[in-house]
């Protein structure tokens, strides 16, 4: 009996240990994305129409007035943050030719919902695009117990696609 209780305690503590932390530093993520040749960052300001659209995607005003992005050719990388339940989740998103190439949870600060870091979840975003109505083209399956974290990453992926479409126009790519 005590053996089972011990195993249960061990399993639950392992799950808590997995929960919070820096899974990959944003710098290391960018190094990976651009094979060590990270381009100089540019900025997008959340003003005017961009601000309104970002507010509508996030369902609240963006937490900062501008965000950085790194782009080379048709690819752009975004380090974006969104609150899950109470704390920010830092996510790295790569867009290639208006499609999501990669989504990776970089820093997770919440006590619950860490399951979103799993590849099985983040791979659902691969190849997602913006529909003609400006929505995310793919339906993302949720994770039980991680609903708010799932929604946060989904909103960020949607936002990254929208911001990419804006900068593609302004950068003339």
């Amino acid at each position, binding site marked *: 009996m005590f053996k089972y209780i011990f195993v249960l305690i061990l399993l639950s503590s392992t799950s808590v240990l997995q929960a919070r932390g820096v899974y990959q*530093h*944003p*710098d*290391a993520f960018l190094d990976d994305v651009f094979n060590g040749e990270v381009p*100089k*960052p540019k*900025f997008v300001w959340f003003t005017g129409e961009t601000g309104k659209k970002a507010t509508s995607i996030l369902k609240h005003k963006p*937490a*900062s*007035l*501008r*965000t*950085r992005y790194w782009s080379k050719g048709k690819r752009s990388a975004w*380090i974006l*943050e969104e609150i899950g339940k*109470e*704390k920010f989740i*830092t996510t790295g998103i790569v867009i290639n030719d208006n499609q999501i190439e990669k989504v990776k949870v970089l*820093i997770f*600060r919440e006590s619950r919902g860490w399951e979103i870091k799993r590849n099985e979840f983040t791979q659902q975003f691969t190849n997602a695009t913006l529909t003609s109505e400006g929505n995310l083209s793919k339906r993302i399956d949720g994770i039980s117990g991680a609903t708010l974290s799932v929604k946060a990453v989904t909103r960020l992926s949607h936002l990254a696609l929208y911001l990419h479409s804006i900068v593609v126009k302004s950068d003339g790519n």
Partner: protein
Amino acid sequence: MATKPKKIPMRFLLWWHRHIGLTVAIVAIHLSITGILLNHTSDIGLDKAYINISTVLNLYDIKLPEQLPGYKIENNWLSHWNDVIYFNDQVIANSMQPLRGAVITAHFYALATSEEIWLLTIDGEIIEKLSAPGEKLGDIISIGTQDNNVTINTEQGVFKADNDLIAWQPVEADSINWSKQAYVPKELTELLFAEGHSISWERLLLDLHSGRIATRAGTLLVDLAGVALLLLAITGFTIWFKRRKK
């Protein structure tokens, strides 16, 4: 010859069912009310509403600090208290990392936590959060300016940023105006305490529901109530079953 198991007398069951019910009634009402409210905290905004009742805050050991450390830029105070960073009495954002300083540059205010640099407007609105120097330069110890450029003292040495805070170059630690810690005026500290922002009503409800508000004794009481409710269900079912058989 096997002996027939003794039947539990109905009077015994009824006595226990009644007394357990009466004993646990208040706790059951408490658990029901807090439980229902907890299910709807977001709907009624209890997760975003903060407590400013000193008696309740004292339960969490949150007391008005004698002296709250902070950093003054122009006429504004930046401070960090209970995982919240304040611009005067406004909440800028939550941060678990300690505040290391704040400076003014030609274009914006910049504050440093141990891992991030936040650029702020003169009204305290966040322009951008930068975590980039974290891995390469180590934890930030202090922030200053040199020729109007943000400069940080890190575990790896002193580094100066370019105008857009993109590239960081090592510099000599001379002629840098380091941000100096001071104490937030008493009136502002009292205002921060009065406005709360540390414990939400949702957190209070959760701690009331689990009994954690009264530390170990409270948790134990709720545990006992849980066992009592279980016994109540068992005795109730047994009484119903016995009566049904008759």
